[in-house]
Every structure is written in C-alpha cells, then in structure tokens.
C-alpha cells in the first residue's frame, strides 16, 4: 500500500496528503457497520434471497444509473 501510494502521488495529487488520507481512513473505520446476527450459512442465504426474483425486463445500460 505504501508503495502504491508513493507512486500514486505523481499520478494523482490527492494522494500526496498522507495525513488527510490517514484521517479519512480512520473515519471510515468508525463508520463500518457490523453484520446482522446469524451463522455464515444464514447470512449467505439471506443475501441469496435478496438477489433472487427481481427482473428488469431489459438490458441494463450505464444510461440507467449515470
């Protein structure tokens, strides 16, 4: 990561402020939400159910979301 960030400074000036990056990443850590209760199998099954049964009826294109 350090190597990538160092190389990245030249490619993207926003990566040059290491302190700002660190503050942001720490803030993001604090925003993390824990998963719902349940076993791994139960959580996988709930996610599987959430990704089943919904149809769009047409090919999705970038113009739908951008």
């Amino acid at each position, binding site marked *: *990561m350090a190597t*990538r*960030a160092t*190389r*990245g400074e030249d*490619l*993207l*000036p*926003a*990566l040059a*402020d290491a302190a*700002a*990056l660190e*503050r*942001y*990443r720490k*803030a*993001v850590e*604090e*925003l*993390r*939400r*824990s*998963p*719902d209760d349940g076993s*791994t199998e139960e*959580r*996988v099954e*709930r*996610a*599987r*159910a*959430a*990704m*089943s*049964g*919904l*149809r*769009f*009826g*047409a*090919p*999705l294109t*970038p*113009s*739908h*979301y*951008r």
Partner: protein
Amino acid sequence: MPDERGVIDLRVEPPPLVVLDTSAIAVALLEDQASHSEYSAFLLRAIESRTTFAYCELVDLELAQVCSKRAREQHGGDRSRFVPEGRRLIADVFARWRAITSQTQSVRMPLGLSDIPNVLGSPVRDAAFGLIERYGLDSYDATHAATAIILGAPLVCADRGFAYAPVELLTIITDSAGVDECRRRRARS
C-alpha cells in the same frame, strides 16, 4: 487468478475489502441481466469469507435512478404512472440492497465528510477531481474509482469505463465478458 493490467476476473477469491460500484450492485440484484450469476456468486462468496463491502453514497442516488428510469420506460413517460411505479421499485431494490450489505461488515462512504467530526475536506472528492482532470473519466465513474483508490481496495464493477483509470492506482474486479475488454482499453490508453 491473474492480475493482468490491474483487471481481475470475478472468480477470484474475495479480498478482505472491496468497493462496490452501482453497475455491479444492479447486475447482482437483477436476475435477468447477462452477468447476474457471476456478480451474485462473488457477493455470496465475499459474505462467506467476511469481506467488508464499501461503497460511495452516490450508489443510493444511482440505484434510485435505475428504478425511476425503468419505470419511465415501461410507462412511456406518463408521470402519473411511472412515479408511483418507480417508488415501488425503489422500495424493493433498497430493501434487497440493505439485506445484502447487512450480511457482512459494510461501510457507506460519504463524499463530503461534513458529517464526520474532526475530518475536514474530502480525499475522495479531490481524487475524483484529479481523475477527471488528468484521465478524462466521467464524474460519476471518477467518484466510485476515487473511493476505491483512497481506500486502497479493488473496485467491483460491470461498467467498462473504469478501465480508463490508471492501472497503477485502480484494480478492477469484473465479469468474464468484461475482463478482456477492460485489459484492451488499458493497453490502448
């Protein structure tokens, strides 16, 4: 799984942290899309391996727009019909999206950061600006790409436009049909 030109096939073992783009989320949610099975399988494996899902708050608006535009297409622009239908779709899609993100550790990343104490400015916004200015990305693509770059995580995406982000900065995880195309785009740029 090869990481050629920073583009990885979705069949990869999910890393500890990934950033999800709207295009990947929408395809995972909609079972009649061409690569649905690849994206849904990746997310299920990621939940199984306790991967953290991160996503920019822009996802909320883009998912809502997917629903609204689809309803508009179905009802020929008749506002009295497409607005209620769009609202119904939005409720369904967001319930499903919440059901996915709540099965593993997740983080919704704010763009502006004004609601986070002790943090001023936004590296994501600055990085997105740089991606537009230096690499010609569109603003929305730049925002999702910047989210991944700032976190140092790969971006899971169905949209091929992310290939224009520099390979040194952004690793892309995408479907088998998109891997070669993304690599070709990166080879040309």
